[in-house]
């Protein structure tokens, strides 16, 4: 048993490598660094040339702006700090930096900007000539890496909805090749760049953002293992842990993610939020809709599709939801799934308590996994 689940230790190791204020879980965060203000939160910086789509990404992912409306966005003139921690489980600041100002002007405090930055997303417009963007990327990476070597560089090859499939690969390959060659020439082989093909018109931008966010979540292996245990013992096909507001999945089980499944789950969240906005909330509807107060601890939804598939959504905490896809045959044992889910929820809460007092975490997790396994054996055999 102890071999099989060593989550607590790993979590601690990860935490150590991140800035202290990396809060995860709303309640303890407030008590922890309540006074220290926003600067210590890890940041995701959005950079890129002007008109490359940075603000559009931010609006679409975190503000539910429909992709078509982003056409009318004005270009950003100053750094827009967007604190998503107020509305989301993931406590991050997204800094949308204007593309056309000289970022390395001495008046900009690059120490401050890159210092607490967890990931830097560089957006390249794939439909445009990207040579200039690559030059800019190179200088940005060089500078940022010097200040903060832990920074993770994510390159979004954006607006690929206008490219043909073959062309997408070619573009990615070309950008990848050039960017890496540039870095090697500059003696920065150690810096790793991750490339994502994205478009705001489909779910690829959400998936790419999910991957970026996942890299910043130290507890990811634990969450993944918990999900693995949950799905193997409940007969679930695929499970996502969603951040409800942004529809980013902060963890999933280890089986491959299929785009249709992900889209299905996103749609389900929309349905649940919409319906609970209409029917689920009492008087203060309007004020609560804004920060998605419609989603509360009682939120749960089950949708049966005509493909013999069941979508199962449960609230994990204020900002997190578990969305599962399972076959109708396996859904007969709903009690088992509900029970397993309770165990799962409990253990997730424990995982985040670990962060506060790192000594206590280990045994709780194992107890939890015991609970699930024992229960499942009872019902399966």
């Amino acid at each position, binding site marked *: 048993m102890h071999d099989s689940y060593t989550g607590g230790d790993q979590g601690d190791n990860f935490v150590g490598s991140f800035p202290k204020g990396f809060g995860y879980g709303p309640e303890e965060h407030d008590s922890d660094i309540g006074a220290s203000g926003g600067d210590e939160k890890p940041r995701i910086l959005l950079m890129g040339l002007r008109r490359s789509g940075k603000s559009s990404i931010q609006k679409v992912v975190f503000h539910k702006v429909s992709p078509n409306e982003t056409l009318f966005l004005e270009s950003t003139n100053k750094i827009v700090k967007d604190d998503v921690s107020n509305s989301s489980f993931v406590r991050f600041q997204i800094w949308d930096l204007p593309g056309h100002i000289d970022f390395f002007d001495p008046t900009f405090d690059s120490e401050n900007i890159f210092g607490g930055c967890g990931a830097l997303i560089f957006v390249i417009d794939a439909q445009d000539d990207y040579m200039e963007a690559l030059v800019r990327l190179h200088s940005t990476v060089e500078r940022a890496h010097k200040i903060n070597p832990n920074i993770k560089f994510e390159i979004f090859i954006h607006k690929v909805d206008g490219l043909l*499939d073959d062309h997408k690969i070619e573009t990615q390959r070309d950008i990848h090749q050039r960017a890496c060659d540039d870095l090697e020439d500059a003696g920065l082989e150690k810096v790793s760049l991750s490339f994502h093909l994205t478009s705001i018109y489909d779910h690829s931008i959400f998936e790419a953002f999910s991957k970026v966010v996942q890299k910043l979540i130290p507890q990811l*292996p634990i969450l993944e293992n918990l999900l693995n245990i949950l799905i193997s013992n409940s007969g679930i096909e695929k499970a996502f842990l969603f951040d409800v507001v942004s529809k980013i999945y902060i963890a999933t089980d280890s089986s491959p993610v299929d785009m249709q499944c992900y889209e299905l789950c996103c749609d389900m969240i929309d349905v649940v939020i919409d319906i609970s906005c209409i029917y689920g909330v009492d008087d203060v509807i309007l004020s609560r809709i804004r920060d998605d107060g419609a989603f509360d601890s009682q939120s749960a939804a089950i949708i049966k599709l005509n493909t013999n598939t069941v979508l199962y959504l449960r609230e994990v905490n204020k900002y997190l939801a578990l969305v599962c896809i399972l076959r109708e045959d396996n859904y007969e044992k709903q009690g088992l799934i509900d029970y397993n889910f309770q165990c799962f929820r409990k253990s997730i809460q424990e995982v985040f308590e670990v962060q506060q007092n790192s000594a206590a975490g280990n045994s709780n997790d194992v107890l939890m996994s015991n609970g699930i396994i024992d229960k499942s054996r009872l019902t399966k055999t």
Partner: protein
Amino acid sequence: MQQFVHDRVNSTKPEQHMSFNCEGPANALALNKDATMCVVAGRTVFRIVGIEDHGFVDRINLRVGKINLNYCAADVAWNHHDENILASAATNGSVVIWNLNKPNRSKQECVLTDHKRTVNRVIFHKADASILLSGSQDGTMKLFDIRKHAVSLTFTGKMSESVRDIQFCPHIGSGYFLFAAAYDNGNIQLWDMRRQDRCIKQFPAHTGPAFSLDWHPEEKEWLATAGRDKMIKVWDTTQNPERMIKSVQTIASVARVKWRPQRKLHLASASLLLDHHVNVWALGRPYIPFATFDGHKDVVSSIVWLDTHIFFTCGKDGYLVQHSFKDAKRPADSVIPSGVDMDLFGHVSHAFGERTGSKKASQAGGRFSFFSKTPDKGDLFTESHSDMYVHTTKHNLTLPFEGFIESAKRYKLSNLTFDALCDHNADIARRLNRPKVSSCWSVLHVLFCNKHLSHSMTPRTNSIAPSNDKQDNNKGTGKSQLTSTQDMNKVNVKDSTSDDSDGENSELENNLLVDSGLLNQQTDFFFGDGETDGLDYDNPTSSFDMLTKVDDDLLDYKLPYEAIQVRHELKTVSPEDLAAGHQTLVGEQKHNNMTDNQISPSEPEDENIINIPFKLDIPRISEPQIVVDMLKTFAQQGDIQSTVSMLIVLGDKIRPYIDEEVQEAWFQSYIEILGYYELWTVSAEIIKLCHIGQVSSLNQQSTTIHTYCSQCSRQILGKVGWLCEKCKIVTNSCSICHLPVRHMFIWCQGCCHGGHIDHIKDWFAVNNECPTGCGHMCQYT
């Protein structure tokens, strides 16, 4: 893992379909060295199954003892040398080594917990049995020495992406140390075991995650990869950059891909979702699977070939199945092998197998000129025979390329009177050798000019001059032009008759009415003449002259219609003259009637023209309908240009008679064609002239013109574009007249002063300096 039985004829294995229920979804499958046993592993399954001639036999269940997460296997591998050693990858990140020789019930030998996240793949090295390689979700690959039970090497890609699949190169000679890894971001990396820090090569292979890869068993450098983008791609890894040799598009994300042994271009694939079959693809024909195998009720998770004709699969439905090629379904057999394609010029080629469709082809060939060739296409298994036909269109229904562009550019659609437009366009059409269109324009002119005479004030000379010219030309030149002038003549005749019916010449009236009745019946032939040849006109020269004369007279006579003051002029024309002219004309027509009454009109447009004289009897009832029919006929023939141009020129005269939707469709298609030929200006003009809101607003959509104040550089957002609301000044007033410029503003780039283009032009014709007196020596060119 794979055993190749080279002598397939004397295969010791019975080639039959066998299946076995493992009682739980299976993730992976591995054969032992002799292919007598296989191990099936999954979340709740871990058992060894014996392979007998008649079916599978349950041998050992390894999932015994105290069950923990180490029994949930994502992948499993069987050592090629030691029969008793197995390795499995657990979802919690541990790699478990199993020893079947262990005396206890639990066969677990050791658990290696070096990975932090799920291990997706474990493989043994083909030659060195002690080497075990694992690839994990945490982005690392670890090389274990199973004698030491410890990690000897860790390969970490620069990216922290998940490793989905790894494969050792099967070629012991050159590829002993080589292995390939597929990543979640679609990249493929090639690694050398001796080099831990970085990969030899890396290339993006798929958009979205790559799920599986497989080295070709014989071609050393070939690597097949598959991913979520529903593609299977075959790469030549020696090339730099890596060259994609083949690709196969499938219907669903591909979870596994395996080359078929001893068939160079065959590979098997299994889907991640939806498709529960195993498809074997022949790369030479990548659109339809070469063979498909069913037997699973859920997706297939693993494929292992036993030999060329037998392979094993396991699936999420918990079944282990032995497939043999004997049972394969051949989807290609049930489709009709036929292909059709069309080229730029409207030629259609059509290829099909001998069994099908030969009758169809000959029918089609009857109308078009065709040639056929019958190439022998040796199929892999059956001898087949296929034909290919290329149909070329004999008379091109679509417009000739230049003609279309020319007329698009030269047609005038607005800014002139209706008559002038019609005449101009008729002229254009005639010059471009499109007689039908030309005559239609002329007819339109005449038809609607008359009808709306009260408000279409055409100068007389305009209509006469060209028609006279035409008649002169007609004598010598082609019949096509003749037809158009005949129209003129004929219609002029009609004009005169209606003139007369006004009661100006009462004594002629009866006579003429009779004549017109005759005329009515005879016009068919009258027109038909002209089409066949112009002889009849040349033959009685005098009558032709007379005709011309009559024409002139009649045209003179037309004037009273247009302005009342011309009544005086009317008197100058002698009625006798006119009557004589008419009689001559009728006589001549009779003559035509007698000589050439067997000729009938053949062209569809003729009907429209021919119908015109009916106006005499049934005036102005069917006329709009005729024009509508004509427009529709043009549209149906593909000459949307004529339809739309006429529609625009006719404007309100015809609009109410045609469906708004139809009109819009016409406009849209014409604009589309114009766009295709890059005639943007014409297209914009058409859009502008269109009365349909949806079309005319096309220009306004997605075209925004921002104006900025030259003083404060702020955008002008007010109602008018020439007044800055902040500075309260008129932004662009003319330097010469000091009035705001609303249309074209010309300014000097040196001193930024300017004004109305006319004023500026005048100014700089005389002066060199800026009109404001700023002292700048502006250059006006």
